């Protein structure tokens, strides 16, 4: 563990709002394949199914297209929640409306799916966060059942742990999940305003955070990731910020976000000069009465701030965080 750290440093922003084509519409999660392409999972919304898709791009905002669509047929989604890619570049998507895990190739071809509504082994009541462990098994947050289910890469049920509640090892509508290099499992326990850490054998280790809006406290965390130095990054969804802890769950730093114009955003404004000029004359960062108690409202007004961060992941030396309400990803440098 480093003896000194500084605040997390902003790097750049990726993406732009787009109901279809290049860009995202309510992005909920993202994942990288072996070729370093990034797959951004768009949730869309009930009134506009076009946004329900996977956008393929890379870190330099090169755009490779989209696949996936809204619906209940094979390979389609209704309420897609999370995306993970295994070592063989198979894409796994959870759909919390259909109660399924849907498996696709990186070109968007439907491979297979499994799951149905229920409480039995292999059943789901709202599958959410996905991650692979060191053995290549898929961990699925089965959120309304308050448990984690573990499957092999073919969808075969292996084991489960957790139950509904607020004691150690219990969960209340958990959302995101991650593992670290030691095989420890981290679960964003959304309803209990904490992240729980477990050993690989599912023994409870400790909590990160508890309810509140002070440093280190959490309101409805959505996602968690751990870097190679052991720093734990938590998407503090209800406080609309990214928080960083050391491996002992000590608060290190947080950020409300620093978004700037992405490459795609800049291109949009360069071709829409009237909007660009009006924007340049505007004061887009300001304080209003009541903002201090309501970061959701503050983020509705101040564009650079994180607004409903749904997924945080480490990629190379960077930490990326997706914000559903601003349809973009903000990129930060890992702490070192």
């Amino acid at each position: 563990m480093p003896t000194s750290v500084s605040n997390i440093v902003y790097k750049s922003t990726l993406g732009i709002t787009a109901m279809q084509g290049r860009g995202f519409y309510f992005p909920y999660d993202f994942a990288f394949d072996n070729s370093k392409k990034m797959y951004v999972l768009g949730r869309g919304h009930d009134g506009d199914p076009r946004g329900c898709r996977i956008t393929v791009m890379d870190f330099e905002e090169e755009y490779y297209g989209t696949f996936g669509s809204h619906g209940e047929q094979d390979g389609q989604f209704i309420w897609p929640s999370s995306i993970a890619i295994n070592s063989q570049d198979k894409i796994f998507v959870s759909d919390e409306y259909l109660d399924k895990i849907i498996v696709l190739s990186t070109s968007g071809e439907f491979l297979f799916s499994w799951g149905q509504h229920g409480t039995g082994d292999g059943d789901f009541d709202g599958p959410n966060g996905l991650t692979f462990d060191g053995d290549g098994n898929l961990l699925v947050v089965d959120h309304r059942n308050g448990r984690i289910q573990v499957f092999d890469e073919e969808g075969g049920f292996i084991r489960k742990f957790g139950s509904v509640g607020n004691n150690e090892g219990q969960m209340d509508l958990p959302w995101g999940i991650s593992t670290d290099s030691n095989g420890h499992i981290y679960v964003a326990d959304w309803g209990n305003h904490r992240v729980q850490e477990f050993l690989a054998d599912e023994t409870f280790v400790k909590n990160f955070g508890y309810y509140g809006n002070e440093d280190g406290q959490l309101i409805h965390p959505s996602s968690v990731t751990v870097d190679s130095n052991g720093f734990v990054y938590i998407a503090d969804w209800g406080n609309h910020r990214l928080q960083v802890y050391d491996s002992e769950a000590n608060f290190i730093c947080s950020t409300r976000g620093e978004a700037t114009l992405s490459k795609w955003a800049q291109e949009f404004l360069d071709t829409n000069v009237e909007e660009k000029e009006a924007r340049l004359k505007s004061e887009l960062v300001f304080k209003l009465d009541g903002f201090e108690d309501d970061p959701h409202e503050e983020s509705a007004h101040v564009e650079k701030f994180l607004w409903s961060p749904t997924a945080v992941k480490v990629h190379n030396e960077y930490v990326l965080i997706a914000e559903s309400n601003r349809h973009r990803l903000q990129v930060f440098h890992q702490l070192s």
Partner: protein
Amino acid sequence: MANNNDTLLMAHLMRRAGFGASRIELDALVEQGYDETVDHIIDAKPEIPVSDYMIRRYQPDHGSLMGSTTNGSNWLYRMIWSDVAFQEKIALFWHGIFATGYSKLANGKVLHDQIKMFSKHGLGSFENLLVEISRDPAMIVWLDNCESHKGAINENYGRELLELFSMGTGNYTEQDIKEASRAFTGWTIANTEYMTLKSQRDSIWPYGRLSFHFEYDPDDHDDDEKTFLGRTGKFNGEDIVKIICEQKATANFISRHMYSFFVADEPPVPEWPYKEPNDSAAIDALSSVYFDSGFDIKEMLRFLFKSEFFKSEKVWNKRVKSPVELVAGALRLTKEFDRPSREEYFTCLRTSYMGQWLMHPPSVEGWHWGTEWLDSGTLVERVNFSSSSLGNLKSAGVKNIAENIRKSIKAPFKPEQVIDLALDQLGALIVSDNTRSNLVEYAESNFKSIDDDSKIADISNEDVGEVLKLVGAMPEFQRA
């Protein structure tokens, strides 16, 4: 059936001050007492069991409210979940008067903010509410006050403030409109050019929509002397509102709106200068409370709900439910949405097929209420909705109602009893003799008289569900 007058009166109150109540809810309220219930619903701080966090998690558009319909869908959640729906009813009342629409703003969040403002200030002083609506960002853009400048006024807001929001035509001059407009110069939103340009272009780029906020620009405010409604001074917007609120015409105008919304349909507002109120004494009484209470909306409504003109059986079931009232009322009975649901979005859309798309009023004048809600198309949509909703036994509330009815059936059973039980359980409904005759005819064709308790179990939830479906199709369910 034990539909005593207290229960029927309470059902009337709950249909008007809320979106209706089930028989079980009515029993508890009758136990509490009528006046006490009025005080409770007016003074209560409503609780909503499902948090905004919960909705936003599953339906992210309810967080950003970018689009044209989600804000209405979000509001419908509050209407059906709030333990005391009166606050949402008040917001609906003001939304109909200060009608502001998405078509020009292209920003659902600022409209949502306006509705929240109505919930927060809609029961306070009318003077304060007029100041709040004058500084409301959605209204400022909707009626172009951001385009009204010192030396170059835009009269749109000044005109509607007097004509549609407070006094009504015939009570002021064209010069008063100009002077009021001068007083509101400088009342604008921050980053006006960028925000209005994004609205005009319906631009969601680069990163979604941005909320508006009020900004007062003293450099753009006309601080010279003005003469308004016979008074002269260096008036600002608050001064204009204060003078407006002191007018008898304002008291009458707001009283007539209240009467029309909560008591009995009045003609559309444009006809008011030419048609006397249906109950002039009631309008006069409400106007007196307006002045006596210092323009207090809450005290006016407390008086209204306790008045004899409100309690009179003559006005029971005389108002046609607006589409939103119909849908919210049915959903509170069916309880089909106990958590965020994509289906709720599509249910909310059905109010637009019935002629009331929330936050999409047809004009600044709002909707025309009363029988204007009904035409051959909207009536079919309304009946189909209420009938299918009340007959859907998959909904927890309908299943519960059906089971309550079955439990109440005892031998000796006559088919018409199931009709009385259904009307009672759906909120102590009163129907005409003709309607009742039609319902009884159905019951006699589909139920048998039973003399033996052991045969009562032969009546299924599905049998009762068909009766509920039929009651939902009756004209009385379309009325409040």
